[in-house]
């Protein structure tokens, strides 16, 4: 699959920002009545053989899927490889996509399933390979509130906080980590998560409840010793 014309940088940035907007919009859309899939036109064009249309889908969903896979694997290199495989699989399978769900749900299902399969094969043999924390976190309202109210967060530096959080996440089971990632980090509603995982909403809620309890235990050590 080749794009005969490279997309200009401005076009790429526009598509990236539209992808970020889609994150906020997806939460609202999931609560509404079923509507026309916003990606329907791009999907149809891709199915008709327009490789450029699939390129636009790649650009739109890369940031979001990157976050999903990265927070499930806590490894940048694995995330990059997985993301390539996810889009390759999606491109091969898109002709069979019948639109019974939105493209958003469909590609997230592919991403979650491939990540879970990868994690099962990887097992316990892994090491953290964390991305840098963007400096804009210093201006985040919730971060400022946490540092103001929570002494462990205040005392630990950012890298220590990041390491502790990722270690706690990796102690969860793969399935629980997936739910935590989608709900807390990606901001997906329960209904959307249940569609992606093909489980009931009750199952999603119970997994979240159990995962929160686990994280409380794992982070208890951090609370007692914020500076290692």
């Amino acid at each position, binding site marked *: 699959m080749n794009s005969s014309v490279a997309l200009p940088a401005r076009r790429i940035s526009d598509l990236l920002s539209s992808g970020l907007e889609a994150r906020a919009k997806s939460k609202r859309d999931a609560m509404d009545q079923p509507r026309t899939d916003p990606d329907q036109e791009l999907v149809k064009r891709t199915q008709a053989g327009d490789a450029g249309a699939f390129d636009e889908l790649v650009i739109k969903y890369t940031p979001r899927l990157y976050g999903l896979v990265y927070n499930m694997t806590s490894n940048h290199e694995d995330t990059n490889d997985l993301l*390539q495989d996810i889009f390759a699989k999606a491109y091969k399978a898109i002709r069979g996509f019948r639109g019974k769900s939105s493209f958003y749900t469909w590609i997230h299902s592919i991403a979650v399933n491939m990540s879970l399969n990868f994690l099962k094969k990887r097992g316990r043999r892994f090491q953290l390979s964390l991305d840098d924390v963007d400096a804009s976190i210093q201006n985040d309202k919730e971060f400022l509130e946490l540092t103001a109210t929570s002494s462990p967060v205040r005392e630990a530096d950012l890298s220590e906080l990041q390491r502790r959080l*990722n270690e706690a996440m990796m102690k969860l089971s793969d399935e629980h980590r997936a739910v935590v990632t989608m709900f807390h980090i990606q901001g997906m509603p329960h209904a959307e998560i249940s569609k992606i995982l093909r489980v009931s909403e009750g199952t999603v809620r119970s997994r979240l409840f159990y995962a929160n309890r686990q994280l409380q235990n794992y982070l208890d050590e951090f*609370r007692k010793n914020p500076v290692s």
Partner: protein
Amino acid sequence: MDEFNDSEIARLLRLKRYEQPPPGYFENFLHEFHRRQRDELVRQPLWRICLERAHNFVWQLNVGSLTSYPAAVTAVLLCAAIISIKIYQQPETARVALQSPPAISVPASAEGEWNLASPVATQILRTQPVRSFHESAQTHRASPPRYVLDSVPVSYEPTFRF
């Protein structure tokens, strides 16, 4: 201090959104994706590439299956008609080929009996006497009468076809 409550855990986890790949990663991702796809395509065996291309071509036709199905059926019927016409337009050359000294050493029966159960080609072979190569150059006014189905004049030399 008590352990982190659910709200604090949720806030801590949301901070993970600030973990981002290196600058330019997303902008370069598409190019990297294309490069990998090309590399994978080159590694595939030729037969697999041809098979995938054929499959994609057929699948494209089926996308608008409701509109292309009649067209596909029409195309198939048209091809069958053309092939049939071409077959039926070659009776003379086929029969002349049968008249040449055949490699088949079928003993000629004195009189062929037309039997609807027997194939026509077999009947033609049986009704024609086996002729040697040297005899073919001579006219045979006194030769046994040819049957009506044989449209080639007696005086014409048979064309040797292999």
